[in-house]
């Protein structure tokens, strides 16, 4: 399916550069031309987000940040309610990239602070981000740098820094790992959770790292890493795969890497270039990557206008394979096909069902069938199927699927089509059931 209409392009953009759009958001972004909409998302510092920050402050006050479910809840709230969707999407990208897990760090406030640091530097230049991450207490604990001493260096941070954070394997040797570890000796944190440079534990001696010899410290190592030709394509390709699809051409990556390097490693300009590229609007990109559980879950809440994160949300995400603040290991989550297993697909389907079957007077979590029918002026079952398909998958359903959905909606009903919604019970079942079915389709699993 291709992206011929602007509405569809904008829905696609909001799925990739955010967590999906509510109908209102899609309408509002569709009011700009597409390139303007991209820049509006990318230059998010100009977008006021005061209401969100105030509500986050309230949640921090009431829930605290001492427990994992609390900080998971607060982050999901941000994803749902932010006026700067790309800020939160980039924060998630960096959380996956610099994957740090509370199961080892054991301090939710430190994890929460790390996410704040990633958010604050999400679009900075990559060197600034690296210098910040290399001093982050949760990271120092996660990769054991707080015990990286002159007398016996601990290689953990040095190795993952090059393999997973900056260069990729094959672009350094075991000797480089050992020398980089020496450079980061004495980079500790104190009892108050603040970075400290412990001179007594730092190895001030000469190191030969990636061919350069000198009395390097951690910042020097980061500088030398960024001089390597492998650094720019490594990050450019990862971001391309995150935003576009999983089969970039080597020419495209080389071009993006050149721009990235030339811009002084500006992440913001790299992301801007990716979102403005023709590839982003190609048929291969459209509905071409698998939604992560966070995108799936926040997306469905936005589609139905749900404003409050339910208490069950962190657990639902965990069972779908994405325990926020607890990536499976330092390589982060396995994206794409890795999200798909029989267990996770049933969890996804059941999470959708939980939402569509939710009832109650306060529509905190769930659709309001009667309101949907009224708002969209739906008179017949086929209008319902088309409206829901539009809302949920930009209308990207085959004729056969549409026919089958219609058959489901109308099963057991033999009256005139325009009297179908006269019965509130029938309306309730039809809207909820059809929405649930569309939400378990393969295309709905795609961003």
């Amino acid at each position, binding site marked *: 399916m291709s992206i011929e209409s602007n509405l569809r392009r904008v829905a696609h953009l909001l799925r990739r550069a955010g967590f999906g759009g509510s109908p209102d958001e899609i309408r509002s972004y569709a009011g700009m031309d597409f390139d303007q909409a991209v820049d509006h998302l990318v230059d998010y510092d100009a977008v006021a987000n005061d209401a969100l920050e105030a509500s986050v402050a309230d949640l921090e006050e009431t829930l605290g940040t001492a427990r994992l479910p609390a900080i998971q809840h607060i982050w999901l709230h941000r994803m749902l309610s932010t006026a700067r969707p790309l800020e939160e999407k980039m924060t998630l990208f960096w959380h996956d990239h610099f994957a740090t897990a509370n199961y080892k760090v054991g301090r939710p406030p430190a994890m929460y602070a790390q996410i704040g640091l990633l958010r604050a530097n999400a679009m900075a230049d990559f060197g600034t981000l690296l210098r910040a991450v290399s001093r982050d207490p949760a990271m120092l604990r996660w990769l*054991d740098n707080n015990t990286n001493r002159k007398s016996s260096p601990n290689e953990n941070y040095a190795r993952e820094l090059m393999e997973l954070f900056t260069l990729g394997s094959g672009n350094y040797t075991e000797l480089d790992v050992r020398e980089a570890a020496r450079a980061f000796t004495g980079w500790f944190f104190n009892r108050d959770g603040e970075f400290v440079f412990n001179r007594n534990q730092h190895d001030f001696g000469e190191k030969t790292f990636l061919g350069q010899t000198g009395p390097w410290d951690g910042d020097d190592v980061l500088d030398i890493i960024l001089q390597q030709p492998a650094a720019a394509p490594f990050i450019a390709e990862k971001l391309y795969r995150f935003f576009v699809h999983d089969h970039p051409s080597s020419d495209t990556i080389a071009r993006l890497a050149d721009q990235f390097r030339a811009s002084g490693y500006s992440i913001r300009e790299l992301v801007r270039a990716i979102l403005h590229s023709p590839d982003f609007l190609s048929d291969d990109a459209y509905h*071409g990557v698998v939604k992560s559980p966070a995108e799936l879950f926040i997306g469905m809440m936005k589609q139905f206008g749900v404003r409050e994160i339910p208490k069950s949300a962190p657990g639902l995400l965990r069972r779908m394979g994405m325990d926020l603040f607890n990536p499976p290991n330092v390589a982060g989550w396995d994206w794409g096909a890795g999200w798909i297993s029989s267990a*996770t697909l049933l*969890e996804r*389907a059941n999470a959708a069902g939980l939402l569509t079957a939710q009832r109650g007077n306060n529509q905190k979590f769930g659709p309001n069938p009667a309101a949907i029918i009224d708002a969209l002026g739906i008179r017949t079952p086929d209008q319902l199927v088309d409206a829901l398909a539009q809302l949920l998958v930009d209308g990207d359903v085959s004729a056969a699927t549409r026919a089958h959905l219609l058959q489901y909606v109308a099963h057991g009903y033999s009256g005139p089509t325009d009297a179908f919604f006269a019965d509130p019970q029938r309306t309730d079942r039809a809207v909820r059931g059809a929405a649930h079915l569309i939400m378990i389709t393969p295309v709905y699993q795609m961003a």
Partner: protein
Amino acid sequence: MVLAAAGAVPAFLSRTSRVVANSSASSPYGSDTILVVVQMSGGNDGLNMVVPFGLDGYHEARPTIGIDEDAVIPLEGAIGLHPEMGKLAELYRSGHVAIVQGAGYPNPILSHFQSMDVWHRATPDASIHDGWLADYLAATAGEAANPMYATSVTDVLSPALRGQGVTVASISSIENYQLRGDPRHPEDDQAFQDAATWIYGQDYGSQPLQSLVARTASSALASVAQVQGAVAAYRGSIEYPSFALANSLKTVAQLMAGNLGTRIYYVAFGGFDTHSAQAATHSRLLGGFSDSIDAFLRDVADQGKADRVLVMTFSEFGRRVHENASLGTDHGTAAPMLIIGSRVKGGLYGDHPSLTDLDANGNLKYGIDFRSVYGTVLEGWLGADQQATLGARYERLGFV
């Protein structure tokens, strides 16, 4: 010592494309044998699990975190088990545990992810190959006949079980392993299930990821009734320890109760990346591991299936011989694999690698290619052709 392997192992061969052959899947132990693969994620410190306490260099290399000689549970000669592994030691003494010492591969990789890939795909040029168990499934065509032929008790499917055209069920929670319709309207459920089955039965040919979703979900829906039936049939009375691996193994035992024709179960547990303050963490993990295996095997025996089950453990690598200054250990190479079951010919297999003649990074030199272990399990236990799965024939070890 059954086999001194180093020189005898074939060179690292690159695998050719998968041979699809409908080989007979019968072994001397019958055509209904079951393999349970236990993945220990993070790089398990083999030297503090199967402890070479009497070998030269052990205590010198590990003055602080080494296991004291009077705490080790002695097995044979210089080799013993971690003190928390009493249950496993009992199984060893009953002759039900084979320990393959020094299992590894040439030119070892010290990256978690790349080394895990090597073990998952049984080849060094890992990224271009399917998982070794996926290859086994394709070669035996077992999974085509039964969607539960292999089952992963994990939420995310291991790459060992991922391959072209192979669909493996993964079940992390039996309770949630069903497609729920609207609980307010049970009268719609049949229509809902039918519609879902139709949706996943469609051809999404031009969309590979959507096709994967449809195929996986189709297979899930086809196995939901079996899985729920299995739980209903489970009458287990064994108490499992409170430990992640125990939960997974209990789920395996529950599924086994349903007699679903499953030949492969896959479980994983982690926490082994012990770069610092290793002792307490590792003790907890090994104690939990030992107790979980013991509970599981008793449960299996209760079901009358003890003779059909073989457990095989692996980790992506062992750890550095010398402890680091953080009272932990860095990434290493060769490590023991455990093969556990009532039909196993217990004992030590292969010589323990030297603790003083190390490679350039201070790591052990491997003795037995891990694919010899895979090959032995494939041929000797599952009755499969190892050539068809591994693309080469590796020397059989004698544990089955």
